[in-house]
């Protein structure tokens, strides 16, 4: 029942070509240590599913690990556009499919509910329906209204970063939950990274903040600062200084390669030291 693994063990268990749903939302609680471990390995061709994506999508695109992205949003919020996402979209080096926030949720929920689709009005009158071939208009069988059929999204894996987890895979999320519960339920295999591993007894003190249930979880990785450079409320905020460095590095291939060598490829295990060490991080990011 003990599901504790190392980053490398988890990453080796994810085959190239897998469809991977990623939790978090833009600059909040992205499973960045797992994503860096994926970005550092050889084979990729991952098919990503994100609702509100950000640095995780951008980093995997920038390290050429992605063949396809289903997304409602990919960006860096107030900090601007996602540079590698933008490049891949404009140069058409990767396949993209634009969904919307609720339809990504509905697609995951359809898988959870074991139905081929869920219906909605969302998307009607927009060009999402024009460019996304997965959606289908249909007449509902009760009232005859025209609705959008949102097809089931079926991730092989989900990557989710939580505040606390026990070794069995129960996870506590203290801040906003985003779509993480849906990702965990919909994926065939769910991998949690957690700021801290605690005993089941301690974890069960958190009541309804225990949002991820072990019956949906396959592996747990301990990862202090595991969401960095996104934030992990209420422990630490997003590191906008690092975001700026990232955005600057993404401008040219040379600076990008240097960024990856420093933070991703060569020293993934020493990432926390590379970004300044725990003390400096506490000083800059703890609230």
């Amino acid at each position, binding site marked *: 029942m003990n599901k504790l693994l190392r980053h490398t063990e988890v990453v080796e268990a994810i085959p190239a070509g897998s469809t991977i749903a990623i939790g978090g*939302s833009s*600059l*909040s609680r992205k499973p960045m240590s797992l994503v860096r471990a994926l970005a550092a390995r050889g084979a990729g061709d991952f098919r990503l599913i994100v*609702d*509100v994506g950000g640095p995780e999508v951008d980093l995997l695109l920038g390290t050429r690990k992605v063949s396809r992205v289903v*997304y*409602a*949003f*990919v*960006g860096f919020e*107030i*900090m601007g*556009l*996602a540079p590698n*996402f*933008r490049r891949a*979209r*404009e140069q*058409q080096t990767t396949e993209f499919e*634009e969904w*919307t*926030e*609720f*339809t990504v*949720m509905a697609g995951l929920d359809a898988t959870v509910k074991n139905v081929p689709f869920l219906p909605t*009005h*969302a*998307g*009607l*009158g*927009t*060009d*999402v329906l*024009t*460019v996304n071939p997965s959606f289908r208009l249909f007449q509902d069988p009760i009232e005859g209204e*025209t609705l959008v059929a949102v097809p089931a999204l079926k991730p092989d894996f989900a990557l989710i970063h939580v505040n606390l987890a026990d070794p069995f895979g129960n996870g506590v999320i*203290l*801040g*906003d*939950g*985003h*779509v993480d519960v849906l990702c965990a339920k919909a994926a065939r295999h769910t991998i949690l990274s957690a700021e801290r591993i605690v005993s089941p007894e301690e974890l069960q*003190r*958190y009541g309804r903040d225990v949002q991820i249930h072990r019956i949906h979880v396959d592996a747990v990785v301990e990862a202090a600062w595991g969401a960095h450079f996104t*934030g992990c*409320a*209420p422990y630490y*905020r*997003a590191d*906008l*200084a690092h975001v*700026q460095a990232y955005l600057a590095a993404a401008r040219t291939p040379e600076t990008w390669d240097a960024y990856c060598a420093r933070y991703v490829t060569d020293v993934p295990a020493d990432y926390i030291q590379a970004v300044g060490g725990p003390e400096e991080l506490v000083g800059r990011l703890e*609230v």
Partner: protein
Amino acid sequence: MDYSVDELMIAAMARELSGEVMVSSVTALGALSAYLAKRTHAPELAVLSTPESGMEVTPMPTLTLGQFMTDAQRGIPLTMEDIFDAIFLDRFRIWINPAQIDRFGNVNITAIGPWASPRVAMVGSRGIPEDTSHLSAILYYVTNHSPRTVVERVDFRSGAGYGPDRERLLGQRGAPTRLVTNLGVFDFNGPDHSLAVLSLHPGVSREAVQEATGFPLSFSDDGRMDETPPPSENDLAIIRASDPLEVRKLEFLGGREAAERLVQIYERERQAMRAALWQNRGRLR
């Protein structure tokens, strides 16, 4: 009374908010208009501190601390499901700032140029399709009204304005109702539901707004154009007290200047939050 255009816009935006609805306050102008409305004419608003939590807080415009604010003020945690349920039930309001808005209120945050081979790939439609198919009030703002932002026709419809698709599939559900820009306040009661001027900000002429707009605007028939009411002294006091770091100014800046200001605010906003947090320690974390 001295005020700046951000404050004028916030006051104009606040006037559009009322009713017992959740109000998203993701952007600084959105947060401040929601809070101003709540403090003045609409105490029943349920203002959020993040896109999905913190109901019943005093929102503070912030770059990274929304969820911390929920915690500090013991805001009510919500789920994404709660948010979209509120949208589908028309109990949600949000001020959206699109990259492009067109004559019939279609909006674009996805791409400049064709979707499959964009000149500029932006961010993706996010939750705008949900809003524009369900809400009875769809509220847009634009901080740089120009022929590149207020356009004849958007390159991509991230949000549904008026047009044949709406007529056939949606009716009034989610139709655009208001646009507030740095030049004026608009609705969609022109011919065929096209953009029409409701009021111009003090000092803005009909010619200036027409010149900044990528298509012929509708003006009211009697030739007299209302002037947007300025923020009251009380409005200004509320706005300035809730945004002492002036996060609201960031939305009017471009490139390097924005980046520099942003770093300053980012450093200072933590201090403000820490003070608030310490007042509320003791909650199980």
